[in-house]
């Protein structure tokens, strides 16, 4: 006869260390995939937040950045917060519009790059076989070709094409060029991760349940890749902003628009260093550096979502130290004596 105790599910204890870990993980984050708030994340968010707000709002409040009626090469003053350039443009106004321009290029290029990386990475990783071979071949070629010369060549070619008109020198085009040349590294990472996710039991279970492959990619695999995708997007933005600055410095940038890179280029051609006009090139350089740093800090925080051990180990050590100081422990911690 059946034992009634055994036919209903018992409450199971989880492994003690797993319970402890779970409590820390749960207490540390919201029910979704958001990274936990930490010093790193907060700093990163504040920096990026301020720069983005500046780029979005400031342009409405500054004078025309191409208004050359100001006196040239003025140092910072109450009327011109960051002085003026050789052509009389207000540097602060330029900085505001430049930040917006750079952010635009960064986001567009980063998004294009990510989408291409998903196609060449996730599809190759999940399907394998001939599709994988073809896509990986293209990825490897893109990896091997040196990035900057490639971008230079494509930019130069595109910008001299007839019939493009003002588009030729626009930041949109530069962003697209940066996007289609910068995806290969991310694609490799996504391919490796997708290949490993493909062997998970829950993917096999979906196949057995009858799911179609594309749905499996979208519903089962991509959601688990979100932290990784976010990190790759942020990388893409950083590289695009820096890449655009580099291109502009070489004169291949979007001279039709104002970006932080074009500011640096103008400063160089206008002999800002020689004239001691530090207010012209230091601000754009500083904003680029800060933006890169802020985005990287956010990326570190995302890393901790992808690999919770990065966060839990130091946290565990901290809480143990606290308890020991409060007098709870009785043995000297000889764990690594």
């Amino acid at each position, binding site marked *: 006869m059946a034992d009634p105790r*055994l036919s209903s*599910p018992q409450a*199971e204890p989880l492994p003690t260390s797993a319970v402890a870990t779970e409590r820390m993980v749960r207490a540390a984050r919201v029910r979704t995939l958001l990274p936990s708030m930490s010093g790193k994340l907060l700093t990163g968010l504040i920096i990026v937040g301020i720069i983005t707000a500046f780029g979005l709002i400031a342009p409405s409040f500054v004078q025309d950045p191409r208004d050359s009626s100001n006196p040239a090469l003025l140092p910072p003053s109450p009327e011109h917060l960051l002085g003026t350039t050789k052509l009389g443009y207000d540097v602060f106004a330029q900085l505001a519009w430049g930040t917006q321009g750079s952010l635009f290029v960064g986001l567009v290029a980063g998004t294009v790059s990510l989408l291409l990386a998903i196609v060449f990475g996730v599809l190759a990783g999940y399907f394998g076989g001939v599709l994988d071979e073809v896509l990986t071949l293209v990825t490897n070629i893109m990896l091997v070709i040196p990035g900057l010369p490639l971008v230079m060549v494509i930019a130069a070619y595109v910008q001299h094409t007839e019939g493009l008109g003002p588009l030729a020198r626009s930041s949109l085009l530069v962003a697209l060029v940066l996007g289609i040349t910068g995806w290969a590294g991310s694609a490799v990472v996504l391919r490796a991760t997708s290949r490993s996710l493909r062997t998970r039991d*829950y993917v096999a279970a979906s196949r057995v349940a009858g799911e179609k492959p594309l749905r499996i990619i979208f*519903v089962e695999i991509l959601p*688990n890749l979100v932290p990784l995708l976010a990190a790759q997007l942020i990388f893409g933005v950083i590289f695009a902003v820096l890449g655009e600055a580099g291109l502009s410095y070489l004169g291949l940038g979007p001279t039709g628009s104002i970006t932080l890179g074009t500011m640096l280029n103008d400063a160089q051609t206008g002999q800002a260093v020689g004239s001691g006009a530090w207010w012209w090139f230091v601000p754009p350089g500083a904003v680029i550096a800060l933006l890169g740093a802020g985005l990287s800090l956010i990326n570190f925080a995302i890393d901790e979502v992808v690999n919770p051990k990065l966060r839990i180990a130091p946290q565990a050590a901290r809480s143990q130290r606290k308890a020991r100081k409060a007098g709870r422990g009785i043995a000297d911690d000889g764990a690594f004596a």
Partner: protein
Amino acid sequence: MTDRTEMAGSGLEARNLVRDYRIRRGFRSTTLHAVADVSFTIEPGRTVALVGESGSGKSTVARILARLESTTSGGVLLDGHPAPTRGAQLDRYRSRVQMVFQDPFASLNPFHTILHHVERPLRIHNPRMRGAEIRDRAHELLERVQLTPSTRFAERRPHELSGGQRQRVAIARALAPGATYIIADEPVSMLDVSIRLGVLNLLAELQRSEGLGVLYITHDLATARHFSDEILVMYRGEIVERGDADTVILDPQHAYTRTLLDAAADPDRLGQLREEVRKGG
């Protein structure tokens, strides 16, 4: 007595299954015979146990039956018809033959809710059913596997459930398409000991009420004996012994079966090993 109409050719049949893998080592390559000429039939309402150690090929057989792997030769037949490998016919096969995986922690997607896991197969195999009905059916299934009240579990995510609860969700997911054959690949070996019986009893009860045919894959001879009608012993890709469960366990014929039985822990032999070793064994 369960009422079973035995039609000729009904059942899930594996016929002369062979699965080879090429292993490349430098410039040489060898062939690994993971499955070497395996044949058996699972009839509705009966459990067949496939017993063996790691490397015996039992998991490969499971994956072949679930159409996750192809065969080098030989085939699978469902009610006398060859099992398809693609297309709408594969969907129909999948609605009849389902699988419960070994690892309760890996077989559920950490990103989705429990309800999602059970609703998806329902939606796939009942494209014309309305959303509300799908949801009701999903809740019904959760209750069926004794996850009551189902509302308490529906919106949770896998990491919030224990191993035994996850395995019950996996069983509910397998039943969702209306499966009549379940391939259970070591369904309890990764669960806590005192939970295992509960899950196995659940499978047994579901089998009785739904008339399921079950392939129970395991390395544990004790549960194989008590849970199944027939036992097949696999070693290095071949079936070395087969027969009625009680007979194979109590009166083994093949040397390997005897070795397996001797190696299994038996509390009635307490102290024997100590004595043997003391005498120089």
